[in-house]
Each structure stands twice: as C-alpha cells, then as structure tokens.
C-alpha cells in the first residue's frame, strides 16, 4: 500500500529547530534543518542519528529543503552537511541563499568567540555547506530526479521565505515553513493555488490567537516611541538584523517624515546596513507597494536612520537606537541596555519572541534586578515594553491557507501542543479532514491510493466520447478496452487493436438458434410479422427489414425458413456473435413467446 510518512525531528509540538522528515512514494525529503535557541547542549540540533543509524544521510535523503533564513530553520545546516555528512542537494530561494550564510556566520561567532564553545562548525564548513545549495525561483518546478519535483510559493514572513510543494507522481505534500497571510509594511501575503495536496504541513505558532489589527499595534508602537523621545528619553529596540528590523525602520522613517521629527534614529552598524542592501537588491520579493515605487524612492534607503557609533550611547538628549541581537543576550544591544537601564525616562521595546535564559526573557517576565557577570547587579528602571511584530499567520490565516490549498489532511508543527490541539479540532470540524500533530520522533503514516496514469488510444477515447454526447448517454456507460502492459508502459487500447498488436487472430464465437413458430403463412410474411413485432417492442434499437427478407436487430440476423416436415411451422434462425450475447439471448426468449396475433 503506498503511503506518506512524516516524522518531525524538531518542531513537533514545539517551536524551534524545525526539521521534518517526509517519505513520499519512496522518496525521502528533509524539510528545514534548524537549531533551538533555548538550548546550548545536544538538544540544540535535531537528532540526526534517527537517520544515520540505518546508513549515511546522503544515501537516505533525496534532498533537503530550507524554507527561510531564520536560524530555527537553517541553523543546523553546516553541522548536518559537514559534520554529520550530507552531500546531496539543498534547495532554498535566492534571498535565503544570500542571507543564510551571513546569519550562520554571525551565530557561529557568538557561539565560538563569545561563549568559547568547542566542536562547533567553522567558517569553512559554512562555505562548503552553501556550495551544496541549489537556488530555486518562485513557482519554478524543480526536477530533483525523474520522479521527485518541488515547487516554491511565496510565504511572506521574511525576505525570501517560501512554502514548498513536494510531488511524486500524483502524490504531494505542501510544507509551509513560517508564513504570514496578511501583507505587512515590507512583505506581501503568502499565497498558494488550489493544489490539493495529500498532506499540508503547516506551522501553528499562533494557533489560538486572532491578532488585533496590525494598524493598532503599529500606532501603539509609534505612540510609545514618540512619547519617550518627547520627554527626552532614549529608546532601545533590540532586533535581529534582518526581517522585523526593516519593517520597523520603514515604520519609523515614514512617521518621522510625517511628523517632521528631528530626534536622531540610529542603527547599529555592520550586519544591518548590509541587510538593507539585500532588501534593495531583492526588492522583487517585497510587497507590491514597495516594488511599484522603488524607482522613485527605494524604501530601504533611509533618510532619517543613520549608522550608530558606540560613543553615541553616551550622548545627551533623546534618540532611538536599533541594535542587535534581538534577545539582549550579547553584543551591542546588551551594552546599550546596560548603559540606559538605570534611567526611568528611557524605554526598551522588545519586538519579538525571547528564549528562556536571555536578558530579554528575564525583563519581559518582570525581573527588575539582573545579575550580570562579575556579580554586578543591574537595576532596571527604564520602561520595558513588548510588542509582537512577528510575522506568523494567526488562527484565521492558517484556516485561510488550508482553505486555499484544499489538502486531504493536515499536520501541525512549529507550535505549542495545547494550542495545536485546539486548532486541530477546529480544522477537523471545519474542513472534515484528518489533522495530525506528532511529537518529535513520532511518525505519522498516511495511506494513499494513487490513481494510475495510462495512455488511452485516441481512437478508443474518441469513440467513447462521441457516444457520450448522444442523448441516451444519461445512464453510465461502460468503456471496454484492453490494458497492454509492456515494460513500464501502460496503454489502454481497443480489444481489436490489442489483438492486432500482439499478432493474435480473433476467434469468432457465433450462435445460431432455431426458434419454431406456428405460422401457416409464407416465410416472407412471417419475417414481416417478426419485423413489425420487434420494431414495436425494441424502440431503442435499430431494427431493419432487409431486401432479401431477413430481419436484423443491430448486428443480429434473423431469417425465417420453412419447416422441413411441418408446413404449419416456420423456423426462425437467430444468429449472433458472442459480443451480442445479451441481446441475442434476449431475442430468442422473446421470439419463443410467439408473435402477437396480426390484426386481420
């Protein structure tokens, strides 16, 4: 029995280290290869020994697909390909291919240089890993091999994020990665056609949330920033270099312009400047408005936002600073935070999710006295705000996508178990499809019943279609043919053709039945009576009286003859071939009952 099997190695009832194994018609695909932000031990990377215990990764996997550049979706890639060992193709979109290695290098630096971790992947490994990448265009059908094909759809979320359709024959799976169903300030909304996959694997980060309108959150954000700088305070916005940062920059830039504000906005240098450049070059991946106006004004060339120098942090007066990294766990954002935390006029705005253990997580959970290295205690007097700007589909958006793709079943990943359970029920109720939510290491098996494509000879098909157009074609009609299976080619041809192709002769089986009738009239008159009787009885059939005196019903021949002994009896010879068996048998039975009395 053909089947589709799905095993999450990560992101099963969890957020982080997305990594999902899919087997479809004998092809094995790995979807994403992420790391977990919340762990520093073995649990950081997916457990690839699940695959390697039965052999090499390259032998097992037909391909790897990366949905977007966030580290929880691609962070384990160099470890996977260079340290565990995988040499097959890795597919991702062009922007992902461009940005992914930069984030990996950034991550590596923090892990190795700052935290001093050993046995971590090296810069060279990142480069070698990226050499195995094959870039895909949106909607391009990529033929991984003769049978396996993949296709990317726009997912919103971050620059270059894509959903992927994986298809073998008539079987298909769609993996959404992370996606966003509403356009934001710089990206468009995810879109997929009615591709009716056997299975849709969707993220479910906001499985239970219906988020308030984006406009409200934006207004809130701007109001808070504005109020703080008005009273002379400084605003720190810890961000990751790519993604939300650009959206917030566009937001502040347009606000500053509209309000004619002069307070400086800074962006911590390095990655971010570079990041803006990526957005400029990959502008075709942004939303329609930005794409349309980019010639007049490139939205990623900011007038009000300038590069930050570390000495600026001590400048007096209000300012807004975007600094990396986003969870305040290291680097420039943490340094600035330490400088500004003591002043209640200042504000820190956390625009995204923070993992447990980070300073970001601590202050968001209300902690106001932080123990820093060297037993120093930092008292946080500045205001702490959390604003969710992460671009995931909410419950409504997820339902919308399921409706768009019309899958036969749904599988939830990248979310919390409790929330998934709620969404699972909702999907099963609304769409009447089964919905799964396996934990990591748990396998879901879906039996499938693929139809079998064969070639039908055009002659046979046309003959059938023409008859299908006739008025009496209301009742289901049967098509008869012979399926010729030679090597791997399957052809459906008419039986005559099949015989001919195989060089076989047809064997004709014919029956002739003698039906005795009491009739004293001449044979010709008997035949005429038979004709009028059949003509009136068999309205749907072609009944003919031929010049030689015989009667035909379709291809069945009826002849009347004199009885050799009894002149009062006539013999009807009814003759038909095996192909007309039903009708022939019916006619003999009918004639046996005799003819109606002729009105004399």
């Amino acid at each position, binding site marked *: 029995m053909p089947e589709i099997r799905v095993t999450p190695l990560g992101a099963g009832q969890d957020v982080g280290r997305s990594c999902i194994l899919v087997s479809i018609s004998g092809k094995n695909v790995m979807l994403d290869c992420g790391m977990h932000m919340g762990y520093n031990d073995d649990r950081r990377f997916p457990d690839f020994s699940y695959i390697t215990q039965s052999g090499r990764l390259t032998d097992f996997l037909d391909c790897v697909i990366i949905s977007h550049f966030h580290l929880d979706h691609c962070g384990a890639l160099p470890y996977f390909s260079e340290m565990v060992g995988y040499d097959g193709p890795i597919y991702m979109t062009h922007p992902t291919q461009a940005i992914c290695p930069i984030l990996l290098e950034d991550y590596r630096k923090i892990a190795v240089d700052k935290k001093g971790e050993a046995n971590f992947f090296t810069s060279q490994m990142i480069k070698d890993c990226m050499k195995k990448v094959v870039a895909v265009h949106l909607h391009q059908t990529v033929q991984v091999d003769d049978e396996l094909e993949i296709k990317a759809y726009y997912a919103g979320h971050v620059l270059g994020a894509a959903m992927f359709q994986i298809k073998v024959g008539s079987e298909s799976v769609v993996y959404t990665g992370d996606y966003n169903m509403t356009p934001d300030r710089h990206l468009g909304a995810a879109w997929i056609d009615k591709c009716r996959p056997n299975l849709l694997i969707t993220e479910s980060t906001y499985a239970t949330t219906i988020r308030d309108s984006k406009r409200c959150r934006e207004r809130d954000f701007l109001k808070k920033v504005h109020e703080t700088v008005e009273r002379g305070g400084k605003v720190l916005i810890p961000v990751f270099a790519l993604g939300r940062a650009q959206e917030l920059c566009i937001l502040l830039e347009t606000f500053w312009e509209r309000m004619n504000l002069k307070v400086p906005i800074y962006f911590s240098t390095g990655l971010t400047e570079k990041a803006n450049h990526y957005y400029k070059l990959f502008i075709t991946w942004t939303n329609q408005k930005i794409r349309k106006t980019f010639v007049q004004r490139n939205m990623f060339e900011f007038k009000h936002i300038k590069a930050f120098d570390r000495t600026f942090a001590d400048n007096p007066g209000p300012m807004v600073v975007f600094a990396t990294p986003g969870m305040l766990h290291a680097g420039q954002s943490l340094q600035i935070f330490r400088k500004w935390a003591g002043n209640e006029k200042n504000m820190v705005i956390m625009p995204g999710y923070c993992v447990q253990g980070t300073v970001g997580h601590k202050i968001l959970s209300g902690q106001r006295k932080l123990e820093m290295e060297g037993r120093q205690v930092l008292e946080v007097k500045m205001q702490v705000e959390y604003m969710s700007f992460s671009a995931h589909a909410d419950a409504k958006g997820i339902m919308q996508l399921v409706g768009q793709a019309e899958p036969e079943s749904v599988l939830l990943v990248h979310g919390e178990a409790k929330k998934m359970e709620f969404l699972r029920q909702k999907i099963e109720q609304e769409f009447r499809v089964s919905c799964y939510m396996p934990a990591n290491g748990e396998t879901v098996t879906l039996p499938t019943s693929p139809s079998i494509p064969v070639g039908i000879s055009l002659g046979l098909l046309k003959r059938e279609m023409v008859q299908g157009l006739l008025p009496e074609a209301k009742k289901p009609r049967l098509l008869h043919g012979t399926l010729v299976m030679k090597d791997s080619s399957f052809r459906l041809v008419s039986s005559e053709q099949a015989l001919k192709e195989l060089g076989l002769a047809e064997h004709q089986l014919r029956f002739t039945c003698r039906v005795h009738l009491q009739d004293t009239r001449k044979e010709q008159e008997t035949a005429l009576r038979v004709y009028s009787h059949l003509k009136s009885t068999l309205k749907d059939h072609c009944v003919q009286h031929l010049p030689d005196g015989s009667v035909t019903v379709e291809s069945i021949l009826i002849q009347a003859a004199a009885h050799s002994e009894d002149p009062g009896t006539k013999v009807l010879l009814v003759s038909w071939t095996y192909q*007309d068996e039903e009708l022939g048998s019916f006619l003999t039975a009918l004639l046996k009952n005799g003819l109606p009395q002729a009105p004399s």
Partner: protein
Amino acid sequence: MKLYCLSGHPTLPCNVLKFKSTTIMLDCGLDMTSTLNFLPLPLVQSPRLSNLPGWSLKDGNAFLDKELKECSGHVFVDSVPEFCLPETELIDLSTVDVILISNYHCMMALPYITEHTGFTGTVYATEPTMQIGRLLMEELVNFIERVPKAQSASLWKNKDIQRLLPSPLKDAVEVSTWRRCYTMQEVNSALSKIQLVGYSQKIELFGAVQVTPLSSGYALGSSNWIIQSHYEKVSYVSGSSLLTTHPQPMDQASLKNSDVLVLTGLTQIPTANPDGMVGEFCSNLALTVRNGGNVLVPCYPSGVIYDLLECLYQYIDSAGLSNIPFYFISPVANSSLEFSQIFAEWLCHNKQSKVYLPEPPFPHAELIQTNKLKHYPSIHGDFSNDFRQPCVVFTGHPSLRFGDVVHFMELWGKSSLNTVIFTEPDFSYLEALAPYQPLAMKCIYCPIDTRLNFIQVSKLLKEVQPLHVVCPEQYTQPPPAQSHRMDLMIDCQPPAMSYRRAEVLALPFKRRYEKIEIMPELADSLVPMEIKPGISLATVSAVLHTKDNKHVLQPPPRPTQPPSSKKRKRVSEDVPDCKVLKPLLSGSIPVEQFVQTLEKHGFSDIKVEDTAKGHIVLLQEAETLIQIEEDSTHIICDNDETLRVRLRDLVLRFLQKF
C-alpha cells in the same frame, strides 16, 4: 494542429498555434520598420524639416503635397509615424485563449491585440519581460505624444496612388494594416492582462495543455516556451542566445524530444561577430572623443546598452576617457537602470553571485555613483544645464524617426568631428539616415545581435533533435544580398517547413494517445495475464468520466437491484443495453480435448466430422452442431437456452478474452 502565421518579420514573430482544444498566440511583435517611411519628429523646431517641399507626381499633379515631402532626395510621409501590425483577419483573435511572450521586444503589438480584437484571455510573461516591456512601450508612447502632429496621412495608402510613388514607398507592404501608436491607457490595460511566470513553471491550460517558459539567454527574463500534452510536445524557440552576456544561460536540454520546434528570432546580422562589434564600438568611440568630437549611440533603453556600459566601465580608464561625460537620455532611463539591478535571479551566474555580497549586479551603478554616467528623462530640463561637450550620448529611438536622437542628429550632423554609432540591428542604418543626408558626421555600423546564428542553430538542432522544424521562409534560403552563402540558412533533416505572413500551416502531428487515469479501486479489480514474455494484458470495463479535459476511469456501477414493483414490467425495460459489449475472444479450440470435456460434462453420442477447414462436432441427441475452425466456432442448436449456455461456457474455457 495548425499554425497561423500573422507576422512576416522573422525576429518580430506573431503566430497562433491551435493545439488540442486550445488557441495559443506565440508572441506579438510589432514591425516598426514602417516608420522609416516617415519624416523624423523633431523635438526642437527644425527649420530644415519644417520647410520641406511637397512632392508632386511627374505630371505635376500636387494633390499629395500635404502628405508627402521631399527630403534629401527621398520622399517621406509627413504624418504621425505608423507601425505595421500583425495580421488580424486570418483568425478570429477573440478566440485566442492565451498569449505567450518570449521577450520584451516581441510584445510591442500587445495593446493592439488585447484592446481591439475582443481578446479575453490571459497573457503569460516573466516579470523582467513585463517590466522592461512596459518601459519600452512607455518610451515609445512618450516619444510620439511629445511631438503632437495634427496630420495623419492616408491618401497615399490608396493602392492606385501607392503604385505611382517612388521607392521605397511604392514597395511598402501591408500599408492598410499600418496603425498609429497606442496610448498609455491602452498599454496599462494590456499589461494588466499579464500573469507573471517563472522559468520552468508548469502552467496548466484548461487541463488539456501545459506550457512552460525556459530561459533563452537573450535578454533579461527572455524565454522559450514548451507547449505540451502528455504525448505531444511543441517547442517555441524565439530570440535565443548562447553567448555569455548578462542574462541567465539558455536552457537547451528541456527542448529535447520535441515533435515540432518552431524557430524564430535568429540573428539579423549573421555575418557579424558581436564580440568584434563591441571592440569596434569602443575604439571608434574613443577615437572620436579624443579628437574632440561627440558620439551618438541610438539605442533602446534596455538590453545591449547594459553590456555596452559594462564594457565602457572596464574601458574608459585605460582609454583615458575618465573625464568624458556619458549621457543616457530616455524618459525611462532611470527606471531601466534601476530595474536592471533588481532582477538578480534572472541574470547569469557571475552577476547573481554579486548580489550575495551584496553588491549591485551591474557596474553601471558605480558609473552613476562616480558621476561618469548621467541619465535624464529628456534633453529639456536638467540636461541642458549639465550638457558638456565632447560627450557620449545614448538615446532613442534607433529608427532615428522620433525621440531625443532626432535632436542630436540635427545638432551634430554637420560636423565631421562627430560620430554616430549604430549598435541596434533592427533598422537598416542607411535607411535610418536617409532624411538627414547629406551628413558630415561619421557613421559607424557595429550591429550587436547576440541571437543565434546559423552555425549555432545547426548545433542546437543536432543536440535537441526535433522531429520537425518550422521557421519563417527567410531562414530557408540565403539572405537576398548574399545569395551565394548557402551556410546562412537552416539546414536540417527533414527540411524545415517554412511559413510566410498570412499562411496557415498544418503541423505534422500524429496524435495517437491521451492520458487517462485509472482509479485505484478499478486498478485493484483488474486481472492481468501474461500473454507473451514481458507483455501482460488485462481487459478493462469501466465508466469513463471526463471533466476539465481530464479523463478518469472508474469501476462500473454495481448492478442495481431491480425495483420490486408490483406493476407488470414492460418488455422494453428488460431489453439489455446492446452497448454493453462482451470482450473479444482469441485462441483456438483443440477438438479432441473439447470432445473429452463434453463427455466429462455428460454429453454422449458425440460425433466428429472433418471438414476442409476444421471439424464439426455433432451432438445428435440434442440436435446440435458445433463447427470448429481455426479462428471461429459456430454453435447451432434448438432454442434451448440452458443447453446453449452450457455449451458456450465450455467453449469459452479454451479461449482467451480481451
């Protein structure tokens, strides 16, 4: 399957393919060579062009002197320039389902088709094709609308009058189809019908046909198209290049196994080597500027200009031209330069990898940054303040009939220090220059056409091996000017089928199969039997369902229980459906074994007689006779259904069913 050929211009094709149940237009090129018959549209009042004498017939009849003017010894139409449209009468264009665009040069007639023929379908094109196509159209509309001309000449088009005109007007073809330029509103409406597609994207048309664009290597986003069903494949090759310039390389492998390959858009200058031309371009440019002259390059706002700017970028410092200003003047100059930088995914590998750094893929960004290249929407405004000579000006239109180029021709034509360098191959440079004669300025002809030449074509055809090649008639004979060059034509086996404008070709297709899907339940019920080694057969009786051109076979419905009605059934309700056919039979019946079987089943008194062709088995008791021959069996019996059915089933044991 038929091909309707609506354009006679080999590089600006417009064909309609009827394939299965779909009607597909392949490109809609606009032949603009017709504008060469018109007077240039000067941007600045030109005393020379506005005081030309009217033309009169030999007998002195001057009734055409408003429409036709004599200029530099030639006669030109003094009117809004007009373009030669594709044939619109050969086929009802409202029946066209889709239009496939191969590159931005081949879509210039789109507004005429989509806005004025009742077209209701979809246009498919890649994003760069659409965006740059829009720029080309915008520039064209702008050039023409900027110089309003009240007069639209039509008298001269009268067949009887046209006969009397001097060449080349006398020989102008299809003048009745010539039309004025469209408006921006029509352009926008036409472009709104485009659906964007990516390379190797499979697009289903009505479930019957699949179309796929492939990279053709000629221009940003340029594509060839595959049009195929499950058993037939047509490749449409239009404007392809194997040279390494800026676009993504041509995808050749996907063109393999075509039944028919339609080949258009080959190089217009088969004897010129593009690399050599670029070298000549640079050296002539440097020479002129060093001598204090100006260089004029009539060009389109996108395409080869990117490559020329890149060459100059590498060349200017070494040639000591760093202080010479380069001007790019076009209403869409800025857009074109900006757009070129954002289509990294459509560029060759080298340029693509630059974006990963991240750096702009084209070096003209740096030329602009360092103020070496400046761009302006027109000669009016900022340009007149910044203008310094000597300089190099890139501007349109290459026909020299409209656009800012007209001004520079008037301005610089009288000095032999200046040079005009023709790089675009679409117009004969001598004809383009005709209304400006006599000229003192130097004219250099360096046509750069990167499209396939005949050597590359023959290599390509050997590689992809189509069963049949279809091409414009121009490609099946050497060019008229070089009739001895037998190498400048397509040479393939079987010989290419050629077409000309307004012709309909029947494509040599033998469609024999169609895809059908057997539902799993039905597949499970099939009983295959091996007839010969490696060949198995299974008889299929199934219900055919056809929806959206997709065919599916489902298991036959289970016989329904006859309704237990108390009414006496009418005979006709019992009549079996004669269209429920029994399978065919094959094989032969071994008489001895057959007789043994009969005996085993209780028949006695069996007599066998030999005949010429076989045997007769007599069952005397039952008055039944069975004629057995090599490939037929005839059972003749009394009307005893039970007996007949018993005998039938015994016979069937020896036969195979199909």
